[in-house]
């Protein structure tokens, strides 16, 4: 298989259920070995996308290719793709080992070879000791790992995972995230991973597709998605964001954003080409924003005056909410030392400034 052939390719794929458009003219290319995350709010079409790739529901229009081959009409059992279902879907009448062996038996693998590979993959997910248990005798996390082993043992070209960690508690979830990342590195299969947990997507994916109402709002690496959101929806959905709206114009030291109050906030130099007079929105992440009684002197900072209306101490950091002419701006400050927490605490109800390096400002489309 040449490496430039995408493992999965959707071309103008549309899926309708009656009047509902679950997937609306979506195109994506997933390269071999990727850890590709589908991220989006409930009902945006994530599961539908996986079900199309897995072959459980037919496309309404468009094309699906797996390793370059058009498979629109291929039934699931003939696709070189395996799925870890959201509810695990383990066969309740079969032991762990029998569950994992099922796919191999379907491939016509015989006797000792089956046992050998079942053991190998149960070892990989750390469940060899429990191979004779029934699924209902396992914890949620263990069941999830069985589902993983059952899909992986077939060594599919592509592994589809539908919110596999959704049912787990936070601790187990973190543990499984690490484990999944390790398994991905080890087996080098293409993973298509569905989640609506942005932290999960950011920490594990090589690439993320943020979906919204059956479309892909943005596709990119975690850093691109986080630091260069394509539109307001993505910026809002991924992480926390401050939005500052105003009219761009030319200031003495470069481009500025003029707020409704007449305040002028410096913009990055690269945005000089913004049409003046038209409304524009700038996004900045709370952790990039600093807050204090007086702003730092000198150019290169975007500064807005306001009043601190909320200070919450969160242990490792403090969040300060400031009301400005451009709306609320949240600054999220880590405490390198403990006196810093006290200093931030004393800002409550004071007239303060918030500021950030203009390099952290991202001009975004409304959306």
């Amino acid at each position, binding site marked *: 298989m040449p490496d430039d052939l995408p493992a999965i390719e959707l071309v103008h794929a549309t899926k309708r259920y009656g009047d509902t458009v679950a997937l609306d003219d979506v195109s994506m290319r997933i390269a071999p070995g990727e850890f590709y995350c589908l991220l989006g709010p409930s009902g945006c079409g994530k599961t539908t996308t996986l079900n199309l790739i*897995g*072959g*459980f529901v037919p496309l309404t229009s468009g094309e699906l290719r797996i390793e370059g081959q058009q498979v629109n009409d291929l*039934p*699931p*059992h*003939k696709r070189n*793709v*395996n*799925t870890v*279902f959201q*509810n695990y*879907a*383990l*066969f*309740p*009448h079969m032991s762990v080992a029998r569950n994992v062996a*099922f*796919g191999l038996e*379907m*491939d016509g693998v015989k006797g000792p070879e089956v046992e050998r590979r079942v053991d190998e993959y149960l070892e990989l997910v750390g469940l060899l000791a429990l191979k*004779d248990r*029934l699924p209902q005798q396992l914890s949620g996390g263990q069941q999830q790992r069985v589902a993983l082993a*059952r*899909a992986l043992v*077939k060594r599919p070209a592509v592994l589809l995972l539908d919110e596999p960690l959704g049912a787990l508690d936070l601790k187990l979830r973190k543990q499984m995230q690490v484990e999944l990342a390790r398994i991905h590195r080890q087996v080098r299969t293409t993973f298509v991973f569905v989640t609506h947990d942005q932290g999960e997507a950011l920490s594990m994916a090589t690439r993320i597709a943020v979906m919204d109402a059956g479309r892909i709002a943005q596709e990119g690496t975690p850093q691109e998605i986080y630091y260069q959101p394509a539109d307001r929806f993505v910026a809002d959905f991924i992480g926390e964001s401050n939005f500052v709206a105003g009219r761009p114009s030319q200031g003495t030291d470069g481009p500025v954003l003029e707020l409704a109050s007449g305040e002028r906030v410096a913009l990055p130099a690269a945005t000089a080409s913004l049409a003046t007079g038209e409304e524009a929105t700038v996004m900045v992440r709370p952790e990039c924003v600093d807050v204090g009684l007086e702003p730092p002197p000198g150019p290169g900072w975007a500064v807005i005056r306001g009043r601190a209306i909320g200070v919450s101490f969160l242990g490792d950091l403090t969040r300060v909410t400031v009301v400005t002419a451009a709306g609320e701006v949240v600054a999220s400050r880590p405490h390198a030392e403990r006196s810093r927490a006290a200093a931030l605490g004393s800002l409550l109800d004071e007239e303060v400034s918030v500021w950030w390096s203009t390099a952290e400002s991202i001009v975004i489309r409304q959306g």
Partner: protein
Amino acid sequence: MAKPMDRLETMPVSRRSRATRNAFRAWSLVVFAFLYVPIAFLVLFSFEDSRTPGLPFTGFTLDWYTSLPENSQLIGAVANSIVIAIIVAAVATLVGTMAAFPLVRGGIRWPNAARVAFTMPIMLPGILIGVGLVVFLAGTLDIQLSQLTVIAGHLVLTMPFVILIVAARLQGFDRRLEWAAADLGAGPATVIRRIVLPLIAPAILAAALISITLSIDEFVVTFFTVGSQLTLPIYIYTQIKFGVTPEVNAVATLVMVGTILALGLITLVATRGRRAGRAVVRRVRGGR
């Protein structure tokens, strides 16, 4: 394993509601007596020494049981009933199970209407079904009444139960198990054989056992469709025309015991079937 639920403390009650409660309790005992005292006498008299059963009890004997095998008419009727019941159960289970799939899985028009139509015979009076069958089979098609017509009549009665039981099980069946099997490379036939059938097997077995019980007990429909043959209920009926005999009591007692055993088995299969089945599997595996 689930722990037995802790017994809930009852709420404090006023004297009056305690009295009401006791009255209801007494009433339920009366109802139970009404249901079971006749049967108790039936069993009791099957051990009665005297040829004419009645109080007072004159002496204990097993003669009526030990002499049953010599009664060739009775043995013939029992054999008939069993053969009919087994064929009825086999056909009803097979056809009923197949019918349950489209009812639950769709692919047919008006599934709700179809379901009502399929299960209607449960609600219809047996005498209506009996007359209908005679009119249709003997009157219209001119078929000689025989065991075959009895089987046809019993199928009308038992099939709806099979459909109901299997459909209920299919209703709760997680389709994603089938998706998962297909995903792992199983074709449609393999999915049915390896995943669906094993998981609905307890329901199918329960349906078969219920069919057997219903068929063996059925009198009305059999009476209309049986022709010159005898089945067990028909035999008992013919005997009773000449007054209740101790033989009939003994046969009836045996039928009752058989029915209770079958019902117990059904309950066991339906509730514990999977667990028990697994225990057996484990034991067999462990023994290897």
